[in-house]
């Protein structure tokens, strides 16, 4: 059984850290990435009115206390990166959102429970973390919405927690690590999550990270540190999205869940690139181009520091399948993403879809169905 002491080594975002095995313990002393970064980061672009940020993280205080000892740095989630103050300070977060023009954030608590936790600890963490997040959502209903954090260690509990998230906490969906859907076989193990979300016409958000080891089909990184493990881990993280999107869009897995909205982070990692390569060479699940099936999912723009990635995704998936996302909390500012979108060759109309309309339409549709 994993102890809480072991959790400390992994921390809240250990799922993501599984893809960053060489913890970046000696992170750059660059002030732009320090705890005061959100105050010092240059703002060279403001998002349009009505912008929703679909990818960001926040440290739930009581749940984080479960995983922290007195020696841990505030804002350190175990992957060695120094978080901005807004990672745990809601007031500082709102101040930053106002500076960059973001109206609402949909908060995800990493990828859910650390996959290395024992079943009991994972349940406890999720319960407390979701209660923490619910308080924020209740206090600032016009600024924040939330996804239910669930453990891939215990899918039955996960289903119950999603139900609680809808019934008692005001959440709009759930978050899973993309490691859970690397293959069809693994995805079928988490199918009960889709079933309950289908009942609620909910949102399933996939974030970077490994699922519990009992979920099949996950590939392991065995590279030693001497073999540029961090570099390989970054690539593997992007590749894990391509495998996940293949499962979600090129098999029949999602067919029974037509009312579940599926969103993936990181602009789908390698998926747009791989599918562009496959275009014209292979047939997809529907018998046509594989690309035609990609529109079943939405992608958030959280790694869009470089405009050409946005342009590639827009050309393959369509701008109406892109959402604004920032990874804020892990990254110190929203401004670079705003700037990248502005600098891209996306038209004004496409940018408006990404920043505002797609997100507002999704929220409105979910709100209508819930009511």
């Amino acid at each position, binding site marked *: 059984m994993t102890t809480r002491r072991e959790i400390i080594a992994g921390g809240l975002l250990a799922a993501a850290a599984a893809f960053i095995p060489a913890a*970046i313990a*000696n*992170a*750059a002393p*660059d002030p732009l*990435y320090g705890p005061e970064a959100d105050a010092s980061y240059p703002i060279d672009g403001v998002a349009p009115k009505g912008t929703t940020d679909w990818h960001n993280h926040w440290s739930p205080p009581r749940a984080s206390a479960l995983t922290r000892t007195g020696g841990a740095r505030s804002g350190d989630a175990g992957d060695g*990166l120094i978080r901005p103050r807004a990672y745990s300070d809601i007031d500082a977060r709102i101040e930053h959102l106002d500076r960059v023009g973001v109206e609402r954030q949909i908060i995800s608590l990493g990828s859910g429970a650390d996959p290395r936790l024992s079943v009991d600890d994972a349940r406890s963490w999720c319960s407390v973390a979701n209660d923490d997040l619910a308080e924020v959502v209740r206090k600032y209903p016009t600024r924040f919405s939330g996804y239910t954090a669930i453990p891939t260690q215990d899918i039955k509990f996960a289903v119950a927690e999603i139900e609680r998230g809808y019934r008692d906490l005001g959440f709009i969906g759930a978050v899973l690590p993309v490691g859970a859907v*690397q*293959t*069809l*076989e693994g995805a079928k193990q988490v199918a009960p999550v889709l079933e309950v979300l289908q009942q609620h016409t909910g949102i399933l958000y996939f974030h970077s990270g490994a699922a519990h080891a009992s979920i099949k*089909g*996950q*590939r*392991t990184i*065995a*590279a030693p540190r*001497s*073999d*540029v493990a*961090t*570099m*390989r881990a*970054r*690539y*593997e993280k*992007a*590749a894990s999205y*391509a*495998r996940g999107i*293949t*499962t979600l869009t*090129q*098999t*029949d897995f999602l067919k029974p869940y037509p009312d579940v909205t599926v969103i993936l982070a990181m602009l789908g*990692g*390698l998926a747009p*690139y*791989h599918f*562009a*390569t*496959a*275009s*014209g*060479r*292979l*047939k*997809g*699940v529907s018998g046509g181009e*594989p690309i035609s099936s990609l529109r079943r999912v939405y992608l958030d723009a959280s*790694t869009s*520091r*470089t405009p*050409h*990635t946005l342009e*590639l995704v827009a*050309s*393959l998936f369509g701008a109406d399948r892109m959402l604004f996302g920032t990874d804020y909390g892990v990254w110190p500012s929203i401004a670079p993403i705003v700037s990248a979108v502005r600098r891209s060759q996306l038209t004004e109309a496409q940018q408006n879809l990404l920043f505002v309309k797609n997100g507002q339409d999704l929220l409105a549709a979910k709100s209508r169905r819930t009511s």
Partner: protein
Amino acid sequence: MYSRRGFIKSVVAAGTAAAVFELTREAKAALPAVTQLPTKGAVVDWSSYWISPRTLAILRSRTSAPRVVSETADAVVIETASGLRQFYPTASLDIEKRSRAVANAGISRQVLTFPSSLGIDAALSPSEAREFWTAYNDDLSAVVKSNPSRWTGLAGVTTADPAWSATEVERAVGKLGLLGVSLSSAALETLAGAEKLRPVFAAADKWRAHVNVQAGHASGALPGYTAVAPREDDAPELRSLFDAGESLALAAITLAHTGFLDSFPAVTIQLSQLGGGTPLLASLLALYDSRDNLGDGLGQLRKLYYDTAEVGGSGHIPEFAVATLGSERLLFGSGYPETPIREVWDGVGKSSIPEPDKRGILFANGVTLIASKTATLAG
């Protein structure tokens, strides 16, 4: 990521899905071998496949894959080690006919390699492989010497016997007049795998040779990544294609970032298919390098060459590669005859890549590299 065995299993498991892939290839084989290209200057095709007469004879005599399974006047059908069937137009195998076709396509020079997609490196025993590659390299040498202004050759070697392969590289470059050697990406997915091939790289460095890395299987004796074989209902053909791209990118990481090549400064490296997912990796490095203080990872990637073979005809991928890797290290490569030359040419030519970069990729970069290597070898 996949192991050689895993990759083979996955493709075999593809079953009917693989047939889709075969049909695609069959359709392409039925097309005119090449189409006319615009002529603006000398064009070097850095990625093309040729099966030599003696290696074709060996493949005809084999009773297990890889082997010839049927032949017509127009095409030879070869079952790969993965169970796929590859179609090779006879016009691409007959060197005189190929020369005319290539010239008609506007290609000045082709760099010939054996197609790694057949899986020879993974399937043959060391003794079989030594015989196979000796025959191939001799045949290739004869072709290059018969028309050195048209053909350049890269030797084949076996990753199952690095010591012999090192000797063969010395023979191929030093005596046979070949430019270098072609290696399978799976052999270089990890630093441990690359270290096994250190003798081969040492020989290549001694002769200032060129190394082409193709997506493909390698000897099972080399360390690699574990695989999950996809089921028939789990998009196996797409996953196999994506895995091949990952294999190339992992090889790029090994060669660019581990310091392995520091010992071999005279070797030039070319990764096929734009290094698989390497351009996407480059975009991630642009994102992370400054934050994580891990050095100039993007700059390291830009020390390798990447060819345009098999990257689709839409232009999206070459555009992305130029945006992330820059154009200076991109080479035109067609993947002929597995891919029509025109498809790749149009993919670059009709893209939104700025004209100077486009001219570099289609013309200047390849000519400059071949000139530098040829001058080096002659010296």
